[in-house]
């Protein structure tokens, strides 16, 4: 439980982002689930460090030149 705490902290930050900046700077996401949902899922599943890396990598992929698509956190191939 205590080991999972940093991950939950990260999830809290993502929610905080969602209801502040996410609202003030609206936009969609090219992927499903959205980048913020992906961040929450990966933080919950892989903890703070790996979750942040996965979410960061996802954000970099969510650029104008990518195709988008369906991409779940549990289908990642970075960590095993």
């Amino acid at each position, binding site marked *: 439980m205590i080991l999972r705490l940093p991950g939950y902290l990260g999830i809290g930050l993502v929610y905080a982002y969602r209801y502040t900046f996410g*609202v003030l700077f609206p*936009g969609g996401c090219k992927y499903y689930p959205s980048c913020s949902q992906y961040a929450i899922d990966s933080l919950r599943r892989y903890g703070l460090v790996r979750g942040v890396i996965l979410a960061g990598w996802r954000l970099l992929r969510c*650029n*104008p030149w*990518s195709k988008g698509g369906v991409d779940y956190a549990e289908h990642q191939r970075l960590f095993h």
Partner: protein
Amino acid sequence: MILASPLTPLENVLRSILEWIGPHGAVGLPWGWSIIALTLMVRILLVPLTVKQIHSMQAMQAHMPEMKSIQKRFKDDKQKRNEELMRFYRDNNVNPAAPCLPILFQFPVFIALYLVLKHSNRLIHIGDNVRWLGFVPDITHHANAHWSGYVLLVVYVLSQLASTYFMSATMDKNQRVLMMILPVAFVPVLVKFPVGLVLYWVTTNLWTVGQGVVTRRLVPKKPAAPPKRSSRTPPRNEPPAGDGDGDGDGAEPSPPGQPARPPAAPKRVKRKKKQARR
């Protein structure tokens, strides 16, 4: 405070640009207009990214019937519907949603500008030219320091609603309503922000609205051309069949001059509706 140190370089860059545009710099605009000019510069930098999205939206217009059918087919299963839509976008190389990265790019700029205005005493000769449009006495003051701040906040809320309207087109209805209501709830927090920042916000929102209007103007035009002439879309991207199944790419190679495809008819109907509304 945590954000202060990593953003200090950006804060310094923005301060230099502002001083360059500002009343004592090369351009010589008053501070209020300098902030607006800076905002426009940031948005102009982002324009190439939006052009890509406009093209994508134009291409998507041709796929409307299939998208509608996917939405109808998975009406009760939100997750499945979104998955199928995303797959469909990917397979057809269209995506109406804005990517997250460029949006995220605006946060550091926004926070750095907040820091610039918070440390406005570091700007050279900030004392003069802080009025804006004759009714704002000082753009470095909090919005609640003068009635003009409240006027600007009203303008801000309206511009925010309008820009959310354009930006949230791909969202669910509930989410969209929430996105429209929340900015109003933020006003009690925003009154503590410097007026200059509200100016930034209004400008960037109005830019978004302008972009949205331009996009909507450009988008219905494209499918008005007969489908056979669509040089933008390579033949392999043509819709496979009426059911819009992404994997069923079994479309026989038809000669380019033959538009005889089932979605053609509903497409034309859609177009007429669009034109009638305009």
